[in-house]
């Protein structure tokens, strides 16, 4: 605990002392230090988790890599700061991380009072419930009287309170700070129900001792648009982080993949030529403060949005989450990007 108070204090102190050091231009700072400091989850399989040798991978991690590739042309120039739900906001506020890609729900409070900026949603999620099959529960409305495991400091915790209050159900919250602690408590039977974003439930179920004995209830009780967050007051940096996401979506739209990106440069389609920075006298990257090759570098590093999705959480991963809302707008989903023009 002392560590956490210390983190907060140091954060506060950094905010105080760094008055003159931390300029508004995050891009210049990042270029000067040579890497992007990226706030990620402490370990959520499919989204951000380190392997045995300490290499991070996952959906959110690929966004960090994509941002690094856009700036440096090198996806390895990232350093990861694992943050708990509680630590993530002070870390971003104090400048400890440059961008927070950590299954963070975009809410008005976080966008305003907390001093952050959100624009892109890289995963449209919603809160769900997981229970043991043995309980014979078919709907969340049958959960009155249950003990519910939840991670503290999340929108999940608030939605949970609202949902049970609205439906006049009783429950007993069992609250932990770390995801691993919630997992362990649920696995040990400390609570009957586990609630978090549904994508998270699919991921967490795999880590339980007997995944087959657990089921995810059909109800989705909230909107959880997850996306990368940056500090307010630096529009250039905000634009870069947003357009990295848009580039990934546009790439999928154009059918540009990690494998065919070099080939696509020769495409006669002027939209694609402009997007990949091969149009004559283009300022497509320099206006952002990057090179004109930035979109190519991003796609070379991590592929397009669909590839990131499939590799980490979709059909090509153990999680096997459907694209659903996260399919492109042209394919029945709501993932949509403004044109590169």
């Amino acid at each position, binding site marked *: 605990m002392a560590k956490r108070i210390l983190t907060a204090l140091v954060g506060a102190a950094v905010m105080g*002392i760094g008055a003159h050091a931390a300029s508004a231009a995050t891009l210049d700072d990042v270029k000067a230090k040579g890497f992007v400091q990226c706030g990620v989850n402490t370990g959520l399989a499919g989204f951000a988790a380190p392997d045995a040798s300490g290499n991070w991978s996952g959906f959110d991690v690929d966004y960090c890599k994509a941002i690094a590739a856009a700036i440096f042309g090198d996806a390895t120039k990232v350093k990861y700061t694992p943050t708990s739900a509680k630590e993530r906001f002070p870390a971003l506020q104090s400048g400890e991380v440059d961008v927070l890609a950590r299954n963070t729900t975009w809410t008005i409070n976080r966008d305003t009072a907390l*001093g952050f900026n959100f624009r892109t949603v890289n995963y449209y999620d919603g809160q769900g419930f997981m229970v043991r099959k043995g309980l014979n529960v078919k709907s969340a409305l049958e959960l009155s009287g249950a003990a519910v495991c939840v991670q503290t400091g999340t929108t999940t915790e608030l939605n949970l309170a*609202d949902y049970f209050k609205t439906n006049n159900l009783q429950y007993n919250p*069992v*609250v932990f700070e770390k995801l691993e602690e919630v997992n362990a*408590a649920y696995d*040990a*039977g400390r609570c009957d129900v586990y609630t978090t974003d549904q994508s998270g439930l699919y991921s967490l179920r795999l880590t339980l001792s007997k995944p087959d004995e657990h089921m995810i209830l059909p109800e989705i009780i909230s909107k959880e648009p997850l996306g990368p967050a940056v500090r307010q007051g630096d529009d250039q940096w905000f634009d870069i982080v947003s357009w990295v996401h848009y580039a990934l979506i546009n790439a999928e739209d154009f059918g540009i993949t990690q494998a065919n990106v070099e080939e696509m440069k020769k495409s006669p389609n002027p939209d694609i030529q402009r997007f990949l920075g091969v149009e004559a006298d283009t300022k497509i990257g320099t206006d952002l403060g990057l090179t004109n090759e930035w979109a190519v570098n991003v796609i070379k590093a991590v592929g397009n949005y669909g590839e990131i999705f499939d590799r980490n959480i979709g059909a090509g991963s153990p999680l096997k989450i459907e694209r659903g809302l996260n399919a492109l707008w042209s394919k029945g989903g709501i993932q949509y990007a403004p044109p590169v023009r």
Partner: protein
Amino acid sequence: MAIGVTNAPERSKSSGSIINDPQARGIFYQAVTVILLAVLIYWIADNTIENLKRANIASGYGFLNSRAGFDVGQSLISFTSDSTYGRALVVGFVNTLLVAVTGIITATVIGFIVGIGRLSHNWIIAKLSLAYVEVFRNIPPLLVIFFWYSGVLAILPQAREALALPFNMYVSNRGLAFPRPIPGEGSLYTLLALLIAVAATFFVARYARQKQMATGQRFPVLWTALGLIIGLPLLTFLATGAPLTFDVPVAGKFNLTGGSVVGPEFMSLFLALSFYTAAFIAEIVRAGIRGVSKGQSEAAHALGIRPRLTTRLVIVPQAMRIIIPPLTSQYLNLTKNSSLAVAVGYADLVAVGGTILNQTGQSIEVVSIWIIVYLSLSLATSLFMNWYNARMALVER
């Protein structure tokens, strides 16, 4: 401190320069220190405010009156998601107090038993006490908490197979459920009788002391007190028609419903803090008893005082003077270590504050509240223990 200058011997007045005047120098250095400190604090505060403004982060303590929106699992006072953040902090504070006070009492009891056990002439008792001290003193408290928490979760049965205990109590990995007494009409008299009994005991004790001082005759205070404190409320209770019902826990769909529950979070934290701190208290007690010179007990024996009375009237009062100051530190440590609650999800001040910090983003405000509360709690404990120490101190005539 240079304030000691006032007691300094007569200063030499020969060197007229103010630079060589020790008092002037003292004042100068103190003034410089105070000014530097003030400038530093001003600079930090100013920069912090400036940065908060630049980052568009709302600040101030106004958020304490907003709706919390989250629920707290363990609460001694009523709390719903409609209560305010301020009340949530109070819930956390009460939970911290609860675990600190119960922990301090239990740690003291275990500590004294083990500490005296270490001095026992019985080989097994002495070695067991030694083993206890060495094991618990040398493990970080967080691990002790995890040990109890996973122990409680792993060993106890699942909620639906709760183990039934006598008096309608049940134990499972959701905690210990027991019937909750619901006082009926007229139970106020029982409470009143208890208060009267306590007050009466106090006067009886005073009377007994005066009588012994005056005549040397002893009065059986203990038995009278027990009779008063147990007997009087019991009689009143029966006379008013036993106005007490119980809310008994019954098996529900998921958990036992009804009754009161002591959760595994509280139990593991309470046990861990008690056992951990008791190891240190045991050593303090042993040191205190060892610190009383052997001549004291020999003199008491020479006067014909029996061994048990020697311990009670000669050894322990003197040992207490050695024990109390370090004991205070242990009490403060236990209170502060209770913030490790966050590791097992016990809703103490730090855990609840952390949730609020996250929901509102008011990190500086919440951290300042933590600091102020723990500081006040520690200072209050210190003040009480200092008062107690002064009472126990040797009165020199």
